[in-house]
C-alpha cells in the first residue's frame, strides 16, 4: 500500500516538474526586448556557404545578397539574405552586414523583424559612439533605433564585435510613430547636399533621398513635397517663410534633432562636414510634413570644444530656421538639456564606462577591427574626457550666444 502511494506521489511529482519546465521554456522564449537588452553582449552566428562568403568579401562594395542561416540564442532563421552594407564603413575584412529575413522566404521574420543591421563599428575606435548617441536621442524623446552589442561568428569563426541595429523600416515606424503607411526616405550620399533647391523636377531629389517605402510610386508622388520643402526653404526669410516651410517639415523637431547632434559633436550629421548625412526623412500618409529620424552615429564625439553653431550657416534650411527667435531659443534649450542630462550623476561618462567594460573582452578578441586595441583604449579615455568636459563647454557657449543676442 505504501509502495503504491509512493509511486503515485512520484508520478505526480514528475508531471509537476514537466509542467513547470514547459512553462519555464515558454517564459524563456526570447523577445525583441531580450535582443536589444543593453547589458548583454550577444552571440550571433551566421552560416554562409564558403564560396558565397568569399564572394561577399570580394564584392563588399556591392549590395549583392547571399543566403545565410542566422542564429541567436538557439533561435535559427534559415535562408535569410545577407549583404554588405555601409558607406565609409564598408569593409571586406570586417564585413558590415544587413540581414533580410524575408529576402528569400516571403513573410519570414525574426522576433517580428523583417531585417537587422550588423554594424561593424569600424569607423569608431572606441566602439561605443553609436550606442551612446542613440541612447541620448532616445532620452530626449527622439525616435532612435534600438541597439545591442554582439559577437558575430561566421561559419564558426569570430568576425568581431558588432552592434545589432534595429533598421529604420516599416516595423520601426510602427513602433515609434504608431503607423507605417507613410513615405520613408533614406539620405542617399552620392554627393554633398546642403539643402539647395534642385529645381522643378521632383526626380532630382531621387539622388538625395532614396525611398524605403512606396518604392514603386511615381516620382511626382514621392518627391513633390520634398521638392516643395527645399524650394520654400531657399526663399528669403520673411513673414511667410516659417508657415510655408513648416508645412513640409516639423521645424521644432528638426532643430531638436540638430541640437542633439551638435551636443554630441557629430561631424557627419545634418550639419556634417560633407553636407546633410545620416538621417531618414519620414512623411506620414496624410499631409506633406516631414520629420527626421536619426541614423548612424559612429562619428560623434568629434571634439570637446566644437562650437554649437559650427557649420550652422552652411545648411540652407537650418540656417534660415535659426533666424526665428523661438527656434533659436529652442535650439539652445535642447543643447542645455543635453548638457545637463549628460552631466547629471555623470550619466554620459558612466554609460561610456559601462559599455566599454561590457564589450572589453569581445573587443580585445576582435582581430578584424582596423586598429589595434591600444587605440581603442585611448579613444575610450577621450570619450570619457568628452563626457566630463563637453557639457560645461556647451553650457558656456550657449550662455555666451544667448548673451550676445
Amino acid at each position, binding site marked *: 500500500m505504501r509502495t503504491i502511494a509512493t509511486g503515485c506521489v512520484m508520478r505526480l511529482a514528475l508531471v509537476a516538474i514537466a509542467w513547470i519546465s514547459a512553462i519555464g521554456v515558454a517564459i524563456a522564449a526570447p523577445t525583441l526586448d531580450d535582443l536589444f537588452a543593453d547589458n548583454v553582449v550577444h552571440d550571433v552566428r551566421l*552560416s554562409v*556557404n564558403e*564560396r*558565397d562568403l568569399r564572394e561577399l568579401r570580394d564584392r563588399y562594395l556591392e549590395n549583392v545578397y547571399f*543566403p545565410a*542561416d542566422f542564429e541567436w540564442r538557439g533561435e535559427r532563421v*534559415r535562408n535569410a539574405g545577407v549583404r554588405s552594407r555601409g558607406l565609409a564603413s564598408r569593409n571586406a575584412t570586417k564585413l558590415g552586414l544587413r540581414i533580410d529575413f524575408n*529576402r528569400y*522566404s*516571403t513573410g519570414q521574420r525574426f522576433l517580428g523583424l523583417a531585417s537587422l543591421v550588423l554594424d561593424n563599428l569600424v569607423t569608431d575606435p572606441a566602439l561605443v559612439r553609436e550606442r551612446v548617441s542613440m541612447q541620448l536621442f532616445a532620452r530626449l524623446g527622439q525616435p532612435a533605433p534600438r541597439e545591442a552589442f554582439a559577437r558575430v561568428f561566421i561559419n564558426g569563426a569570430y568576425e568581431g564585435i558588432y552592434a545589432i541595429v534595429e533598421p529604420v523600416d516599416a516595423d520601426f515606424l510602427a513602433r515609434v510613430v504608431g503607423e507605417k503607411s507613410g513615405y520613408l526616405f533614406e539620405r542617399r550620399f552620392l554627393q554633398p547636399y546642403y539643402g539647395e533647391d534642385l529645381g522643378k523636377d521632383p526626380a532630382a531629389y531621387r539622388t538625395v533621398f532614396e525611398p524605403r517605402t512606396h518604392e514603386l510610386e511615381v516620382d511626382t508622388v514621392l518627391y513633390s513635397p520634398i521638392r516643395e520643402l527645399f524650394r520654400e526653404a531657399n526663399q528669403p526669410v520673411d513673414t511667410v517663410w516659417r508657415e510655408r516651410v513648416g508645412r513640409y517639415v516639423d521645424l521644432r523637431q528638426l532643430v531638436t534633432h540638430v541640437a542633439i547632434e551638435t551636443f554630441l559633436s557629430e561631424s557627419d550629421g545634418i550639419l556634417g562636414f560633407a553636407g546633410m548625412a545620416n538621417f531618414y526623412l519620414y512623411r506620414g500618409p496624410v499631409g506633406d510634413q516631414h520629420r527626421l529620424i536619426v541614423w548612424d552615429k559612429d562619428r560623434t564625439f568629434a571634439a570637446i570644444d566644437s562650437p554649437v553653431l559650427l557649420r550652422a550657416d552652411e545648411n540652407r534650411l537650418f540656417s534660415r530656421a535659426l533666424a526665428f527667435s523661438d527656434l533659436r531659443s529652442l535650439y539652445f534649450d535642447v543643447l542645455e538639456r543635453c548638457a545637463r542630462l549628460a552631466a547629471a550623476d555623470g550619466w554620459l561618462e558612466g554609460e561610456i564606462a559601462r559599455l566599454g567594460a561590457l564589450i572589453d573582452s569581445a573587443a580585445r578578441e576582435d582581430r578584424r577591427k582596423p586598429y589595434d586595441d591600444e587605440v581603442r583604449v585611448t579613444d575610450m579615455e577621450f570619450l570619457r574626457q568628452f563626457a566630463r568636459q563637453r557639457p560645461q563647454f556647451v553650457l558656456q557657449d550657449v550662455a555666451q550666444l544667448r548673451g550676445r543676442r
Partner: protein
Amino acid sequence: MTRTAAPIIVVLAAIAVVLVTALPAAAQRLRETPPPRDGEWNVRWDDHPEVEWSGRLRVEFRARLQGDSRISRAAVERLDGDAFDVGRRRVGIAGEIGGTLEFQIERELEDSIPWRDVYVNYRPTRGLQFQAGQFKIPFGLEETTSSANLDFIYRSIVSTRLAAGRDRGTMLHGRLASRVLGYEIGVFAHDGDNARPKHAGRVSGGRTLAGRLTVEPLRHSKAAWSDLQFGVAFTRSSLPEGFPAVRGRSLLGVSFFDSDLWVKGMRRRDGVQVRWRPGPFSFASEVIRVTDDRRGQGRSGTDLQPFVARGWYVSGTWVVAGAADAASVGRPVRPLFQGGLGSLQLAVRRERLTLGSLRVTDSLSSSPRAEAVLGNSETATTLGAAWHLNRWIAIEGNLIHEAIGAPSVTGTPHLRIWSRLFRVQVSI
C-alpha cells in the same frame, strides 16, 4: 498585329499563291522523270527537288519559310505582345552516297546559332548505323520530330525547355527484330542546345551520354494498334557549379521561374514517350524529368536535394478531311487546285511544366541554397487547326491558354494568358 506585319503577310500570301498553283505542276513533271542510267545525271522532284547521279549519288535540296502572327498579352521572347515575324528561313541539303552513306546539312539564314543538322550517317545494315556530327540528341518524341511535321505551331513546353535538342556527337542506332525495336545511344559534347546558356554565368551539362529505346510491339499485326509505339530515353551529363540554364519559360517565353539556385554534380534527364495513330486520329504523350544535383551547395557546404524540372503533355489530333490517316496529313489526297481543298486537321494538347524540389523537407524558399526550392509551374492548353493546302504549304492556327503559378502561393509570379497564333509555312 503590328503595322509592319501587313506587307510581310501580303508577300508571304503571294508566294503561297504562286506555289499553290505553279509548284504542283512543276513537281509533277519532274516526278515523272525516269531514274538515271549509269554515268548520267538526273533531276527529280518528289518531296523535295533532287539531283541523282548513276544511282550512286543523290542530293535533295530543301528550304523552309515560316511566317508567324501572334496576338497575345504575353511578353514573348524577343518581341512583346502582338507581333508578326518571319519565324524561320532555313535551307539545306540531304542525300545519300553509294547507298550506305547518308548526309544532311541544314542552316538557318538568320539565327545566332545558324547551323542545324550537320551530320553523316553510315548505314551498313538497318540494325547497325553510325552517325556523327551535329544532330538532335535522341531524347524526346516531339523534340526529335521535324518542325515541318508538328501538329502545333510550337512544340510543348517540356519539349522546348527540358528535352535536350541538338549537339555535336556520335551515335550508334538501328532497328532490330523486323523494326519492332529501335535503339539509339551516343556521346555528345554537351547536353543539347535547349539547355545551352544564353547568358554568362549559367551552366549546362558537359559531356553527355544519351540513349533511347523504342518498341512497336504490334508493328506486324493488322490491328489498329499496329502503330503503337512506346519509348524510354535518358541523358547523363556532368554539371559544373553554377546557376542552371534550364529555367521556367512559358510557351511564348514569359519567365516564371529563373532557376537562380546553385547546382553541381550530375544532370539526369529521363523521359517516357508513347505515340499511337489509329486511322484519322493520333495520340501522343511524353513525361520528362530533368534532375540537377546540388552537391556541396548548402549554406554549410552540405548536399542539397536536387533541383527538378519535370513536365508532361498529352495531345490528340483528328484528320477531319483530305488525308488517308493522321500520319499522312501533310500529304493531302487531293491538294488545293488539284481537285480538292487539301487536308484539315484539328488538334488539342494539355501540358504542364513544374520546377522546384520534389520533397518539401524544409520551409520553401527562393534562396539559391534552399533545401526546399520555392518553385513554380505552368499549365497550358492548346487548340489547333492545320490546313495543308498541298504537301508544301500549310496554314495553322492555335489558341493557347496558359496558367502560370497559383495565386495562393506568394513569392512567385502567377498569370493567366490567352494567345492566338497563326502560321504560314512553305516547305520544299
